[in-house]
């Protein structure tokens, strides 16, 4: 069994660093376009919330906090805020490794959700990265397509 024990400090550091990277860099050269990219469109978030409510909420719960010992939280974790390709891959292909987040382990399998459209996936991933206190860049349809084309990681 594979166990990944990421130090809480590392998780926190990455979680804090990530959302700041894009906008912070953009601050030196003010670009309205970059600012807009940092804040996903309300319509996209609304679409993402709809998908989340229908397909994700049962396990990850309304507040994104997950379920003790079973379903991991989606809050302040590199799985959500980090590498978008990995995140999209988890949604497309499922995920069956035991996850350790902040010292707690989570056992339930994440089933593949390849029945969702690329647009639905991009919307829900963007929603998750910008809800429950999370703030991170949007996931594009192109990024979802790439994850779908890639094999299970």
């Amino acid at each position, binding site marked *: 069994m594979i166990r990944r024990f990421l130090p809480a400090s590392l998780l926190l550091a990455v979680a804090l660093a990530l959302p700041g990277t894009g906008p912070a860099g953009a601050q030196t050269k003010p670009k309205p376009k970059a600012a807009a990219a940092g804040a996903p469109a309300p319509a996209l978030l609304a679409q993402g919330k709809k998908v989340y*409510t229908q*397909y994700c*909420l*049962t*396990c990850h*719960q*309304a*507040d994104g*906090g997950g*379920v*003790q*010992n*079973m*379903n991991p939280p989606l809050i302040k974790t590199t799985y959500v805020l980090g590498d978008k390709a990995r995140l999209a891959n988890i949604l497309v292909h*499922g995920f*069956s490794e*035991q996850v350790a987040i902040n010292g707690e*382990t989570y*056992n*339930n*399998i994440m*089933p*593949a*959700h390849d*029945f969702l459209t690329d647009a639905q996936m991009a919307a829900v991933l963007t929603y998750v990265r910008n809800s429950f206190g999370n703030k991170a860049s949007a996931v594009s349809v192109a990024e979802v397509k790439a994850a779908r084309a890639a094999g299970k990681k």
Partner: protein
Amino acid sequence: MKSSLLRYALLPTALAGSFALYSLTGDAGRVAPDPGNAGLKLPAGFGALVVAETGAHARHIVVTPEGGLYVKLAKPTAKGEGILVLKPAAGGKATLAGGFGNYGGTGLFAKNGYLYASSNQEVFRYKLNEKNEVVNPAQPETVVTGLKMGREHETKSIALDNVGNLYVNIGAYSNSCQAKDREKGSMGLANCPVLDSAGGIWQFKADGQRQSYPQGTRYTTGLRNVVGLDWNQQDNQLFVMQHGRDQLHDIFPAMYDEKTSAALPAECMYALKKGDNAGWPYIYYDPTKHEKMLAPEYGGDGQKAVNGQYIDPVAAYPAHMAPNALLFYTGTMFPAKYRNGAFIAFHGSWNRAPEPQKGYFVVFQPFKDGKPDGQWEVFADNFAGSAEKAASGRADHRPCGLAQGPDGSLYVSDDNKGTIFRIVYNK
């Protein structure tokens, strides 16, 4: 999970011990409820106190005739202690006195001079001295080894009968034996292969050494996962609480809407006999129809019932509430109606979302002549801390283990914050 020691083999010792404790220690022997009953809501005449704060995921518990506790932890502490030892303290409370057993798990049961404890693949036993202290904590006997452990339902709850047998739950490492676990629309595997080594209760010799599947007996099959179980002394039979399947709506949305899925299937109590089959993954129990329904993974549509072949539950409770402990009450502290009835610790739901969550309480199920008799009732409530915290699933405390104290008080462990509660009746 509970000390059978005090009920049988050592009953006279237990009585003598508690009398001695009370007479010698005076006020220390008096058990006073905490102000506000430690936040619990109880029937009139009952009170509650916090015995100890372990700060760990406290799963099943044993209370010794001397009033000490053993607490099994889901995972060992930083010091490598998977079983905590608590000694009795003033006012009916207890203090941490050490620990041993560098493995996580749930099962804990004391009987015939031994403390039995399980990891997620093995069962160990520790010799107890006349004070019910573990003699050699570093060198337990390995009674059972090599049990199947999957990614879910990995804990191994245990109970003993009166003739030297050990019963071990081996949970199904699957929700409903789909080709792809929990995946929308995925159908069930033919002759569910999980059942050869899991999804049931296995029987072993309580004094055996390094037993595994070849030395054990598949006592009952078709049980998805059992965390709470106890031996009923009145009809000499094993009773178990099954955790029913999840996600009917998520997997088959055309057949089950969210409300229906939140209410199906029942969490069931079964009275087991050797060779019984409770029907997982092929059926689930509908508490409204009072029928065993064909699972959608195996051709069901929410309407097709199944008769015969599989045993019926002896009692049914609301869906998804996760019964994590079962205890037949044999004490005399509580009023007569509780004697030989069952207490059930409901850990609380998650799979009712988006409907409000339920559970986070201890239920009393009246029994008569060794069978459930009459409607169950919520006995100890508000472990969650408020109605809102229960509805959201963000409960302060989640009941997980039950044990009966030598004076007949009821101990409840919480595996969220690690609080140990004690419920007493004020005569």
